[in-house]
């Protein structure tokens, strides 16, 4: 890489692990998260001359990664998150197995909305932009995801308002 690409290097160092972490939470698979994050940063480098002029290049690469992850989840046929292989030395594993299993039953886009909304604490406008949908559609996905989780968890009377 030339010196002119120093901005890319800085962005990579700052964002790669965060992007990979988000994809990991979505897919529950460290290898897939690594592959998807790398694919997204390959795309970023291929489009760097254009994307580097954007206000938020980090948002661009995050958007690419999330969409690749959603595609992966669709292909995998909604594989249960309970199948994910947490590495014993890297964390305590799921403490709420019922919720973990219920999240695994959600369609990929609903799962993506939940991760961006609850893990990354993004406003719905940004969540929707990342996933290429309108803000109202994003709220619909959030509402349906929470309603389905409440049903799967047998929670009666849970407030599922957006």
């Amino acid at each position, binding site marked *: 890489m030339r010196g002119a690409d120093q901005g890319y290097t800085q962005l990579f160092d700052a964002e790669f692990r965060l992007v990979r*972490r988000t994809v990991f939470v979505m897919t529950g698979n460290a290898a897939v998260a690594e592959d998807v994050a790398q694919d997204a940063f390959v795309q970023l480098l291929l489009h760097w001359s254009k994307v580097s002029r954007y206000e938020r290049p980090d948002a661009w690469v995050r958007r690419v990664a999330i969409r690749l992850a959603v595609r992966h989840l669709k292909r995998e046929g909604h594989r249960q998150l309970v199948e994910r292989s947490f590495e014993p030395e890297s964390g305590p594993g799921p403490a709420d197995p019922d919720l973990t299993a219920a999240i695994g039953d959600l369609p990929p886009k609903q799962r993506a909305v939940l991760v961006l909304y609850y893990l990354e604490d993004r406003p719905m406008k940004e969540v929707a932009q990342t996933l290429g949908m309108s803000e109202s559609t994003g709220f619909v996905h959030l509402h349906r995801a929470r309603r389905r989780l409440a049903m799967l968890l047998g929670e009666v009377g849970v407030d599922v308002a957006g």
Partner: protein
Amino acid sequence: MSLDDRLREEFRRAAASAPAYLTPGTRELVVRRAAAVRRQRRVVLAVAASAVLVAAGLSVGLAVNPVGSPLLAGGPAPSSTRPSLSETPVATSSFTSPVYGYTVSYPTGWVVAGARTVWTHGKNSQADPGVSDIFQSPGKARVEIAVQNVPAGWSAARWESDFLSNPAPAQMAACYPRPQQWAAVTIAGHPGGLLGRVSWCGFTEGVVVIGQRAYVIKGVVDPNTLTADTFDMGVLNIMFASLRVRVASGTP
């Protein structure tokens, strides 16, 4: 604990389980992969340029050998010696669609499954079995060609706006851009549009209207690939350039 709190806690725990390290050399690997993609694209462009030259030669040949000559009537498969890319074979064979009547060259070694029924507007979709001529690569990538009759005066843009159910879903807008944002492409010597061609769309599709028929030539990437590749334009350019159509006379 509320559902909101449980979700936050669940994702926080999952995130804490995510690998925190960055394997040395990851960035260099990404840079090398991007360089490989650039090289691949340059080769594809070279192949496309070669295909244009082949098409020009074919046009000259057509002027000498009128339609109906063995050249377009299933005679010996034309071949070429274009530089090869992994997905772009060096030779082509010829196929004449029994349902739609067009003739097109496709990579030798691919298997063709001809359409069994016409693609009727409003009655079936291009994804329905038997509607498309399918050119299956030795891998999982394929090209699908289907044809629809359209009213006189329709353009490819008019066809698309009628074909898509209202505007494309927001999340697919990049795959089905507005006509003014289409990449221009020449198919069978006629101006058409190029749709898709974004890695996560999974397809690259050329659309052209010739003689009251809309021709849709869709390249579909291997659905199992995780790489962000788009369909091999070298193959599509060969098919775009070699397509020869019959003048419409009723049903396709």
